[in-house]
């Protein structure tokens, strides 16, 4: 146990620096090394989830509140599994996609650094380590978004850098307030010390942290960077950003802070419900008018994260279950959508829907997998999106929030409409004569697409009680335990 928790941070970190040593000519060595690291992470994450290995690791042997601790509970295990799966799929896809860029080793180095940062955020047991790993992941992602250095990427990178750094500074200011209020940085210790009521400074700290993490999670009104950053990044990075980055650094941290560290309060619940609802609506309305495929997908990310926040902010067990289920589902189908859009761009060179047409005949695997992902995100049975959206809407009705339930249904209908448009223009319809000679994407990219499509189908099984108990229920329990998180102060 003492070695398993740091393992998730050591392996990608060491991998990143070893890969950075690989010279430009031997790009294939970087491919192998990065994928070996991803597989190693996935195996460890599966073991942790299935055998329910939860616990604490006191770094350096120093016990908290003096020392730094890394906590692995149900929610962390779920996030680690999600990160590991999407990392593996993206790195498989990147083997052939990144051939068009120079010096693959540097790409993989930054990629593994980002994964190390995300794993660290998820495992952090005290605020400052959370901030440090958040910054490691963020800085790597800023560099990765601007990897190609085309003109739109420069502006997107600068905007992303600016707003991302702003979010991180708000988080740091919140951490400073937390230290000033309580004299401790350990999350479990803080939840013990503020067990009564919070004074003004504590509430200000909570507000600052929520703004900072909300900016990282692209909650409306702090979403302005996402529609520019996600399309401009190379496709595997878009998939990682939309699939796990906004969740690990934004949603996870938000959930941890509002449920486990600060006692669950009515006002935070209302604020998160409102922000979630606004995200859902604004995301889908902005998405419908888009003709750039990746920009459309980015706006849908905003909308679906709104669903997740809505589900979890409801506070009921069913709501939290639905929210977390939608979180993992979104990782699967949104990554698949981005990888499919990248496949189209790889072969045809365009992202504009108006320029595509009838690609179903020439790129059958891409068309089929993107169709599966579109059905999943629209909430069509038997794919995973249907079950998670149903759970959220049901939970909203059960909690008496009929307005939010109606909004969720309307947004779902508009999502279906938006993706029908994508399918019609990109894949169905007459074949645009420009694409008459387009071939399907190479083997490894196809493997990644098919794997995620299978996941979209198989993850519906997460609704069954036996499967649910292994993966989702520990996470739900971790959130519902609230300030019992303080038990991690003393180990196990």
């Amino acid at each position: 146990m003492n070695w398993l928790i740091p393992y998730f941070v050591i392996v990608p970190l060491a991998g990143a620096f070893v890969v950075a040593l690989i010279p430009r000519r031997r790009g294939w060595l970087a491919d192998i090394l990065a994928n070996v690291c991803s597989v190693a992470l996935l195996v460890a994450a599966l073991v942790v989830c299935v055998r329910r290995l939860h616990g604490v690791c006191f770094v350096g042997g120093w016990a908290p509140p003096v020392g730094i601790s890394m906590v692995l509970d149900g929610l962390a295990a779920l996030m680690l599994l999600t990160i590991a799966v999407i990392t593996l799929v993206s790195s498989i896809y990147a083997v052939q996609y990144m051939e068009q860029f120079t010096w693959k080793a540097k790409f993989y180095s930054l990629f593994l650094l980002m994964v190390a940062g995300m794993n660290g955020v998820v495992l952090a047991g005290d605020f400052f380590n959370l901030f440090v790993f958040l910054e490691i992941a963020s800085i790597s992602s800023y560099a990765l978004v601007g990897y190609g250095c085309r003109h739109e990427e420069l502006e997107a990178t600068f905007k992303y850098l600016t707003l991302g750094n702003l979010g991180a500074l708000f988080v740091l200011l919140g951490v400073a307030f937390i230290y000033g209020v309580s004299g401790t940085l350990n999350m479990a210790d803080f939840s013990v010390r503020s067990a009564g009521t919070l004074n003004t400074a504590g509430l200000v700290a909570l507000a600052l942290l929520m703004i900072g993490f909300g900016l990282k999670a692209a909650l409306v009104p702090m979403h302005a960077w996402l529609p520019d950053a996600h399309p401009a990044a190379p496709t595997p990075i878009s998939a990682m950003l939309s699939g796990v980055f906004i969740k690990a650094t934004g949603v996870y941290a938000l959930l941890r802070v509002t449920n486990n560290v600060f006692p669950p309060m009515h006002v935070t619940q209302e604020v998160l419900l409102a922000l979630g609802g606004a995200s859902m609506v604004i995301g889908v309305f902005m998405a419908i008018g888009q003709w750039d495929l990746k920009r459309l997908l980015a706006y849908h990310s905003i909308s679906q994260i709104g669903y997740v926040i809505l589900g979890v902010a409801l506070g009921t067990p069913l709501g939290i279950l639905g929210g977390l289920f939608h979180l993992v589902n979104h990782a699967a189908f949104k990554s698949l959508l981005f990888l499919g859009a990248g496949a189209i761009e790889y072969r045809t060179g365009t992202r504009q829907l108006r320029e595509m047409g009838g690609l179903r005949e020439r790129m059958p695997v891409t068309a089929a997998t993107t169709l599966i992902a579109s059905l999943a995100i629209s909430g069509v049975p038997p794919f995973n999106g249907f079950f998670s959206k149903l759970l959220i809407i049901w939970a909203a009705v059960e909690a008496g929030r009929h307005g939010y339930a109606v909004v969720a249904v309307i947004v779902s209908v508009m999502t279906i409409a938006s993706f029908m448009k994508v399918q019609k223009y990109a894949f169905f319809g007459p074949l645009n004569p420009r694409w008459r000679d387009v071939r399907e994407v190479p083997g490894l990219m196809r493997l990644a697409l098919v794997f995620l499509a299978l996941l979209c189908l198989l993850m519906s099984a997460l609704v069954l009680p036996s499967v649910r108990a292994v993966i989702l229920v520990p996470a739900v329990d971790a959130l519902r335990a609230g300030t019992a998180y303080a038990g991690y102060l003393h180990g196990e």
Partner: protein
Amino acid sequence: MPYALCLVLFVIGLYAVATKRNLIKIVIGFIIMENAVNLLLIMLGYRLGGRAPILWQSTAGDAAEFARVAVDPLPQALVLTSIVISLGVTALMVAICLRVYERYGTFDISEIRRLRG
């Protein structure tokens, strides 16, 4: 009172980031914000009439006296880390500013703003 001044400095930096049009001024706004937060962190550890939290051989014996007089060393460690992080981000921002200047010949943000919607 000094804490409020740190927050004023933070807001000044925020104003620079939000309203200035020159990319370099935006970077400077970020530097001001980061320095404000670091200053706040350091001041949280201050104790009136305190000493630096370094244990010399001559004063090693009396741990209680040391704990009574020394300033809190934890925020100092936090600020060191934070300075390194902000160094990395500032370097990245300046590199992007240079690339933008290479491409467009200007630092004016409204000239390079083309993404809409």
